[in-house]
């Protein structure tokens, strides 16, 4: 990662994830964003339309290359061909950021090397840590650059953890000098699911959970934030990180806290299901910029309710997204200004 990304502007770089339905507008209409994130695997074809599109996107935007398939926590070896394909894309677009996840994807079934096609959780222990660190170091050696590692939304807890997730990731950064891509919505999802996954049934305050999680992270190892929204669920169901909605009020509140704690970190809006118009997606990016202005500008009188439309946090939301949380978010904002 380019260490100057934080320093070149008082405000963070704000980008959006590029999806197929938006290709044409992304290329042919003006967009007030600082970068585009693409999923590396969507551009692994050797030629054809996606190859040309990748060239065109790289010409128009700064690119963040987000890989979703390395499976850096896999005990089964990651093929060199796969890392080399990512490297080929890096050489083609000179990305501002390169990232993947703290997960496993590869395993062996009946002597076949199988890829799960998903981001699968690992236990947070020494064995996983050493293995993931070795894989990250190998990938960084092949790529000739440091990468960012993203925290997961996990739908099951594997036995054998001795660290918390944040401790595990901090240790990983110490061992490999990689940095963290912190997906703030994943913190919300994990906090929401914690009551069910832990078997305690005790519902957590998601904002407080996220704040504590973030408080465990040293400021100098954070390289990017991801923001997204997902479908709210009842208390007996696991929340799925489906990236199907606008960023929730809780996640915006956590973002505000994170900017205050970590500084002007590059930030990405992700939206994958029930895709909105390109204009709506860009509007989400504008909200992120407005919240950054609340933190870094001279707009301490601005409140969340000035930035977010009332309809967005009430329409179709569950009981979890009510006025008290908006007030809580504004309280965080006011408190952080008093403490600053």
């Amino acid at each position, binding site marked *: 990662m380019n260490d100057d990304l934080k320093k070149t502007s008082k405000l963070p770089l704000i980008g959006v994830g590029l999806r197929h339905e938006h290709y044409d507008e992304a290329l042919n209409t003006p967009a007030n964003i600082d970068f585009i994130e693409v999923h590396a695997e*969507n551009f692994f*074809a*050797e030629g054809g*339309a996606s190859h040309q599109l990748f060239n065109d996107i790289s010409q128009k935007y700064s690119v963040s290359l987000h890989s979703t398939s390395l499976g850096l926590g896999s005990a089964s070896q990651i093929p060199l061909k796969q890392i080399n394909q990512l490297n080929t894309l890096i050489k083609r677009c000179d990305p501002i950021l390169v990232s993947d996840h703290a997960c496993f994807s*590869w395993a062996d079934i009946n002597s076949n090397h199988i890829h799960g096609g998903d981001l*699968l959780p*690992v236990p947070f222990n020494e064995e996983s840590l050493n293995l993931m660190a070795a894989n990250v170091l190998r990938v960084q050696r092949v790529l000739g650059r440091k990468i960012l590692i993203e925290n997961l939304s996990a739908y099951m807890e594997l036995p054998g953890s001795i660290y918390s997730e944040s401790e595990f990731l901090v240790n990983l950064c110490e061992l490999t000098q990689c940095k963290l891509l912190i997906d703030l919505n994943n913190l919300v999802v994990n906090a929401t699911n914690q009551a069910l996954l832990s078997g305690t049934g005790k519902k957590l305050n998601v904002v407080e959970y996220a704040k504590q999680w973030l408080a465990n992270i040293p400021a100098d190892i954070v390289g990017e934030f991801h923001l997204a929204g997902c479908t709210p669920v009842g208390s007996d169901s696991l929340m799925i990180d489906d990236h199907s909605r606008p960023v929730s009020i809780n996640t915006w509140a956590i973002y505000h806290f994170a900017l205050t704690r970590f500084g002007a970190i590059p930030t990405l809006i992700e939206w994958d299901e029930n895709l909105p118009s390109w204009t709506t997606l860009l509007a989400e990016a504008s909200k992120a910029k407005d919240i950054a202005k609340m933190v870094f500008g001279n707009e301490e009188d601005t409140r969340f309710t000035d930035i977010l439309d009332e309809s967005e946090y009430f329409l179709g939301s569950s009981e979890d997204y009510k006025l008290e949380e908006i007030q809580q978010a504004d309280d965080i904002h006011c408190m952080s200004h008093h403490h600053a």
Partner: protein
Amino acid sequence: MLDQQQNKLLEAIFLGNSLFNQSSEHDVKNKGLKIYQHSLIANAARALSITYATVHSYIGKNRFNTLVAKYLKAELKQEYDWGEFGSTLPGFIAKQELSNAYLLSQIARLDLACHQSERSKDVPVDLTTLNLLGENDAYQLYINFCSGIDIMQSTLPLDEINNTITNLTEEEQINSLDDVTQQLTEFTTKYKLSDNEAGNLYSFIIWRPDFQAQYSRISTDEYLWFSALLGKDTESKTSIGQALDDLNETDFSFVEWLPKAIQERLINSITIQK
């Protein structure tokens, strides 16, 4: 320890098994596992509906998803790129108890060829090199075809089948998946009989002049011509002169074929190797 844990989890995801005993304590763990199992099928179905777009449109989302779920259990995914996943699906379809399974497997072969064509490496174009054809020994000249060129043969006239379904759909004579199935069944019946009688093979060329793959039926002689030039059997390309020698007992005419090939943008350049 960790490798065993990961192997076991991935196996449970692919095979749709439970990892944990049925008890209230383990209920939530199996719920979590189910999320990964559903996600795998959904991702695979999404990827394969792109690769096998025609098959998907002929059998519909529900039957396609059921097919994909069975396929994932039978053929564990070894590719990390979803775009490369599923090359054995045509053979798998042929073995299924599915209406018109054999016909659908042949349509799937054509879908796959088009998909792979669209992902293939771009080939540079230099039509000025066509001048080499008039000035040099044909045994030293090689044709560089356009991107994504491939050939295939089938016992079914796949172009006729696809064109018929498309036309009937546009004419609103096909209005449902049942209508498509009925039409495909008619083709299955018709060509089962003719195959038994004549053992016909239909030949096709697949290519992409730009980004979108095209396919077209070609004669058996043309198929042999492309096969020789592309080095399908020899694993090395054959010169124009040698390929013509190979076809000297056929009706293939290079003089007739060349302008048509140029017009259809099949040829990107000619190279000379002395």
